[in-house]
């Protein structure tokens, strides 16, 4: 039994304590935003926030998150009410196949929480741990800068 907070709500899960957090999120809690990519902490698709900082949930046993705060893409908004970061990705059309995007968005969220006006270089450096084989890398940079404007109260 492991208790933690997930997107602001208390959760209690029964998976074995050495189960990767990613499997608990997807299999026990049916939150399928975080994706399984490599299972080795190499691709970034499984990235979620732990106490506000990005971690690879495929190599974080659920015992690690006891009494801590986990944030996933589902906490950023919904399909009908997307949060600023999700809205910016849609408006910049920064998604092609989309498999890597939830993880990328969570690491982006961590950057935008601490850096209100990130440069393109800061964004590229922050997202370096994420593999993407589609072709929207430059649009992703624009989307983060757009989201930063939204978060500061701007309109576009």
């Amino acid at each position, binding site marked *: 039994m492991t208790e933690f907070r997930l997107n602001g709500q208390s959760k209690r899960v029964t998976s074995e*304590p050495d189960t990767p957090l990613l499997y608990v999120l997807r299999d026990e809690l049916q939150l399928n935003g975080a994706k399984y990519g490599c299972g080795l902490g190499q691709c970034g698709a499984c990235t979620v926030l732990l106490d506000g900082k990005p971690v690879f949930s495929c190599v974080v046993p659920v015992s690690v998150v006891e009494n801590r705060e986990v944030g996933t893409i589902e906490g950023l908004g919904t399909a009908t009410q997307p949060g600023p970061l999700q809205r910016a990705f849609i408006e910049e059309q920064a998604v092609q196949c989309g498999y890597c995007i939830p993880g990328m968005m969570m690491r982006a969220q961590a950057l935008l929480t601490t850096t209100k006006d990130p440069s393109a270089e800061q964004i590229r450096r922050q997202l370096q741990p994420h593999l993407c084989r589609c072709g929207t890398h430059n649009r992703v940079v624009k989307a983060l800068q757009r989201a930063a404007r939204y978060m500061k109260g701007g309109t576009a």
Partner: protein
Amino acid sequence: MAGQPNAARSQAASQALARASGANAAPRGTTNTVAATLYAGACAQCHGEAGRAPSNPALHLALSSSLRLPVPDNVVRIIRDGVHSPDLGAEPLMPGFANALSDTQLAALVAHLRTAFTEQPAWNDISQSIRRAREHDASMLRARQKASLP
């Protein structure tokens, strides 16, 4: 010519190689179930566990020199920061766990690795090593911010 290692070192090397490649290629039993759970969930995918070979074999920790040093600073740093390729554009060879593991969890894991993979006496200064690593990271961050680096 480097010459032959002495008998004790040769025997230690043979034992480490046997443990890393033979039927016992797994950490020894432990009384620290919290740390064993951390190892199973965070490390075993690459470093191996009892009865299951890793899909992406990393160094077997029975062969790790960092685990045999007098102080655990290197092990603490590797777990916190990961192992990076000399090609800065490439993915890390091992991901870092600084954001994932609390200091208490990291200390338990480091103590477990020393016991499970070596014959060396337990480290008694793990928390100081973790504090040094944190202070180093904080000073590096301050330097980056001062220089306005991303």
